[in-house]
């Protein structure tokens, strides 16, 4: 009985995050299901929602070091519930998983943490905000000012995040549809944090500045049974506009969706079919072929860009593996961003 | 020349010389009796010729092979092939039957000749005793097996050390007749140690050992 393995199977939609390439199109027995029109409330919804099966706090940041080099970091806390409630102690059904990564143009460091709720080893509180697993934490007086820390065997980072604009609610005021069948999740972001801080590499500390993007999402059944992989983009353009776009790959064709974010933080949902993404180049990564150069077009916004991985080998060799790393954007708009891909085996 | 003993000397450790520059020749088909007092060195000379022991000086040549140049393996090979010895004690292998004992030396030297063996068996009058074991035979019968075993390899030179010393006169004469007859038949040389003048008289020639010297 591969308990650990099974746990990860259960977490696949989590790790797959917005991607969901594992079959969670099944029933949500006893778990709450997202409903359209349910207004999000803050700071309450910054915290955990144990009644939902899966949830995450997902930070990516594109950074430039004092040494002039580009870096990217990832900090993710996943929650996966075995049952729709919380208990104190080891009997808690809430499981937590943390992923942290640090990408340089030629290296990619990964660390992973697992914990169970109920004993205080991992959790999230809304006000004051704190999300933690072991010694990794993201915390601040509110959601606008956050400290972000994580470390692995060979790397560590300690960053300060300051929000530069409002929260962005995706889809229909935070209700984000994930398939033609109507599976959905609650989904909001803070796409614009200014970042300062240090990261520690085997070669020593590096001071850096840059931009971070935080995603919040929770659901109980985000994917359809036939959806088996996912390409997700978060792009920040030099003119201050931003784009969140994803493509869910499924048996019945692709499902694309996204949000256009103006320089003032205003959000325009992009329903299925508006965005087109085309893989241009495949790279051999961890024994499989993964697209690491893309063309993304959004005719509505006269957007046609080429997206290229800073480090094509940004493979997350965690219990549940996927590709996640910083990208450079060129074309009609220049900029930086993050790319996440799952389901390529 | 079949056998050539040339100025051979032998002293046992810690003793007086037993053989002192002894020389002896023996042609193909020739039979020689070796006589001498008890303790005069007859057995010693025979054992040297039979490549069973080593001499101090001189040379012994058997069928063209010089013994002094042989190592233990070479001497063993010579004993399997050109030479055969019949001892005073019968020296049969107690756990082998008469038939197996008869065939044994020949098999050891890898030259079994079934026809010759059955001819020998007949001539030696052993046909009825083939299944017996040595302990179930009389002395004369045992000695006949030993002679048969020796001649089965058709040796060039047969050595016999008082082969009838343990037998009474009648048995002794019978065994000797058989042996001489077969020796004549195979044409091999014979060097026979004996105390008996009567036996010595039946051979071609006689060599007498005394005081370490041959006369």
């Amino acid at each position, binding site marked *: 009985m591969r308990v*650990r393995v099974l746990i990860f199977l259960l977490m696949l939609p989590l790790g797959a995050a917005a991607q969901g390439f594992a079959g969670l199109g099944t029933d949500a027995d006893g778990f709450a299901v997202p409903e359209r029109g349910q207004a999000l409330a803050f700071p309450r919804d910054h915290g955990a929602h144990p009644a939902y099966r899966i949830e995450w706090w997902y930070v990516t940041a594109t950074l430039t070091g004092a040494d002039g080099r580009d870096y990217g970091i990832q900090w993710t806390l996943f929650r996966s519930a*075995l049952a729709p409630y919380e208990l104190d102690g080891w009997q808690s059904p809430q499981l937590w998983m943390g992923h942290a990564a640090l990408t340089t143009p030629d290296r990619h460091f990964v660390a992973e943490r697992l914990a169970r709720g109920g004993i205080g080893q991992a959790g999230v509180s809304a006000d004051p905000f704190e999300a933690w697993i072991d010694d990794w934490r993201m915390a601040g007086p509110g959601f606008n000012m956050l400290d972000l820390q994580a470390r692995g065997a060979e790397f560590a980072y300690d960053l300060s995040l300051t929000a530069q604009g409002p929260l962005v609610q995706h889809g229909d005021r935070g209700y984000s549809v994930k398939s033609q069948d109507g599976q959905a999740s609650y989904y909001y972001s803070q796409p614009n944090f200014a970042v300062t801080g240090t990261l520690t590499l085997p070669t020593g500390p590096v001071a850096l500045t840059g931009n971070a993007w935080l995603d919040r999402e929770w659901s109980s059944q985000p994917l359809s049974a036939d959806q088996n992989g996912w390409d997700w983009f978060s792009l920040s353009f030099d003119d201050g506009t931003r784009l969140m776009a994803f493509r869910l790959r499924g048996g019945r064709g692709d499902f694309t969706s996204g949000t256009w974010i103006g320089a003032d933080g205003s959000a325009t949902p992009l329903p299925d079919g508006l965005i087109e993404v085309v893989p241009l180049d495949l790279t051999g990564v961890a024994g499989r072929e993964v697209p690491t150069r893309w063309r993304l077009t959004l005719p509505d916004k006269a957007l046609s860009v080429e997206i290229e991985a800073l480090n094509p080998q940004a493979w997350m060799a965690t219990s549940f593996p996927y590709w996640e790393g910083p990208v450079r954007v060129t074309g009609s708009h220049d900029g930086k961003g993050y790319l996440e891909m799952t389901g390529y085996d | 020349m079949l056998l050539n003993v040339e100025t051979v000397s032998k002293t046992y450790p810690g003793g007086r010389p037993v053989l002192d520059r002894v020389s002896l020749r023996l042609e193909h088909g020739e039979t020689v009796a070796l006589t001498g007092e008890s303790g005069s060195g007859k057995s010693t000379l025979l054992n040297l010729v039979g490549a069973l022991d080593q001499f101090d000086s001189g040379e012994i040549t058997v069928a063209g092979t010089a013994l002094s140049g042989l190592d233990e393996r070479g001497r063993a090979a010579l004993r399997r092939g050109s030479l055969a010895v019949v001892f005073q004690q019968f020296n049969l292998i107690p756990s082998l039957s008469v038939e197996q004992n008869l065939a044994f*030396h020949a098999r050891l030297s890898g030259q079994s000749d079934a026809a010759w063996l059955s001819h020998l068996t007949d001539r030696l009058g052993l046909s009825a005793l083939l299944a017996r074991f040595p302990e179930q035979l009389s002395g004369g019968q045992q000695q006949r097996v030993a002679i048969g075993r020796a001649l089965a390899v058709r040796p060039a030179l047969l050595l016999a050390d008082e082969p009838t010393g343990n037998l009474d006169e009648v048995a002794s004469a019978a065994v000797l007749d058989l042996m001489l007859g077969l020796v004549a038949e195979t044409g091999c040389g014979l060097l026979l140690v004996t105390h008996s003048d009567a036996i010595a008289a039946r051979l071609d020639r006689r060599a007498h050992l005394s005081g370490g010297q041959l006369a």
Partner: protein
Amino acid sequence: MRRAAIACLWSHWARHPLQLLTLLAGLALATGLWSAVQAINAEARSSYAEASAQLGTGQFDELRAASGPIPLARYVALRRAGWQLAAVLEGRMPLPGGSVEVMGVDLLAYPALPAVEETSDINGITPADALLAPGLLIARPETARRLRAQVGLPPVTRSQNLPAGVVLTDIGTAEILLNRSAEVSRLLILPDQPAGLAPLADLAPDLMVVPAEGRSELARLTDSFHLNLTAFGLLSFTVGLFIVHGMVGLSFEQRRGMIRTLRALGLPLRDLTWLMLGELLLFALIGGTVGLALGYVVAAALLPDVAATLRGLYGAPVDGDLALQPSWVALGLMMAVAGVFAASAQALWRLSRVPILQVQGQYAWSAQGMPVLAQAGIGALMIGAGFLALAVFDGLVAGFVMLGGLLMGAALLLPPLLTLALRIGSGFSRGPLGAWVWADMRAQLPGLSLALMALLLALAANIGVGTMVSSFRLTFTGWLDQRLASELYVTARDDAQGTEIARWLHSRADAVLPIRSTEVQISDQTVFLYGIVDHPTYRDNWPLIAATPQVWDMVAEGRGALINEQMARRMDLWPGDTVTLLPGWSLPVVGVYSDYGNPTGQAMTALPALLQRVPDLPNTRFGIRVDPAEAGDLRSELADTFALPPQALVPQAAIKASSLAIFEKTFVVTGALNVLTLGVAGFAILTSLLTLWAHRLPQLAPVWALGVRRDTLARLEVLRSVALAVMTAILALPLGLVLAWALLAIINVEAFGWRLPMHLFPLQWLILLLLAVVTAGLAALLPARRMHHLPPSDLLQVFANAR
């Protein structure tokens, strides 16, 4: 040439099949007993290794509290400081038919769970099944069956990949089963840690890092037990080799003429030597193979008892099934081959020196031994060296070196001593026949001495082991009476029920003695620290083997501690020394008590003093003093009132019985090996007498010719053999007693941690003496019968063939 020579060598065995059979039997016995012991050891060791691999124990450094469990909050704090740890909560859960070890691990963090991951029984099991109430238990099929028979336990999944008697489950389920919450027993320090962590010594100064190698208590304790077995196996092997030696010697002697003839007929000595070596190798392989089969059977028969001992005594996870291991086969055959060549070395050496021509000195083969005085000297030297080793080094190995030296030395001394005895004896003989018998015995001695040595060793081992076992039983039963003074022992479900039971019993029993303890770490070893109340039960009964005056007053006032013998010996703490029970709490040792059957250290002091330092001491177990006649009624009343399961209420008699049963089993193996060794020795005598038979005739024939009847000669044959055996047995007695002393005072102390008083059992010796007489008599009977029925012609042949 080879073929003819081989056929010739073989013809000897074809003519003497009994000889061949004896040779092979001796070899099979030697290999068999040795391999049996090895199989048992290998099986047990692989069980430990497997258990350790299956449970991931012994692979990682651990964090433990100085005393008792670690609060869960400490674990979380260390986690939040970045340390990667895996929490384990373990404890014993009572079940009918013996408690089981519950091992609760954090399934999300535990690093090595092949057992969990490879169980075939898992179809349809989800993480929710394992992690959510009621949880999931995993156990071997036998254990699983027992668990399933219990109502109210979580579902059970079977796994072959777990040690016997262990229940693996998630830590959340274990908390409920063991009725403990918010605490863990130990923390595994995982191999991959993040960079830049604060040192554990700063974060958790009160927790101790126990290195993976430091926790080898089980290995150390069981090692001693296995060494014990190995020593017995080696003894049997040696005795078996005596037979091989005798038979090889006989066959070479009988083939001496053949060897000479073969060489005269032209078979080179080197070829002959190789052929004989090949012959021996073949015998070694055949005998070894039969021996392995025999060993397997013996091991399979003994293993259940050994397993029971190891489980009962050390809690070592061994089950009673024997698996055939290739290394065991290889080792067994190697031993057989090495043994054959060792036993034949002398014969082979002589073979290489057989002159082709020499005729006289037929008898020289087996009679040429060392000069008697030199042999006596070497024997005495070996005994001295053994005792010297004991004086210079300590430990079990030194103990065995001493025993080895003693036994070998005594064996070498035997022929000189017998010669002396025979010389003295011949002084008392009357008449010519008497004089001849004595002289003949002396002449026979060199040929028999090896067999008699084997008998000496077997008898001495029997006396030694018998004395040890009987001493143990006597001491142990007496000790049980003292130690288990309470009439009834009760275990409550939890502290609250414990308090209730104590209150309820107050008016119904003569006394209620709480049994409250905590685990502490002293000098890197786990010790159980007990708090006791002052009561005559202890003052009158407790089996102290060393004490200061006013020992009980000191203990009652919390000014002194008692420790058990194991702990005293291991840590060399005796009355007058000071022991640190907890960091910052040291007490003088005021007494040492014997504590048989317990592998771990134990200490006791006053309960109030202990409660001051460890306030949350569990309060669930009690000894109840009550009129024995009322114990039965009280038991059922208790069970009814508090709904206690039967295993929570144990009467004194039941504990005594089960304790005694464990100890009986401990010595079943030793006893069995012992008997087998004696049998082998008897066989050795038989083969030696048969060997000598060839030489006997020329010596008997003249006596017969002079007018002594054959049946008289036959009777004298038996008498002689018995007389030699009796003399050997008499000499074996002091040797056996020294052996017993060494076993009790040295080997047992090292192997088990306690020293037993030695008791003497003369009746046992008498039985052994009779056994020796019977053995030697039976062994002589076969040659004697031959003598009796010998046709006169055979005797005559001696004269006919005399040359």
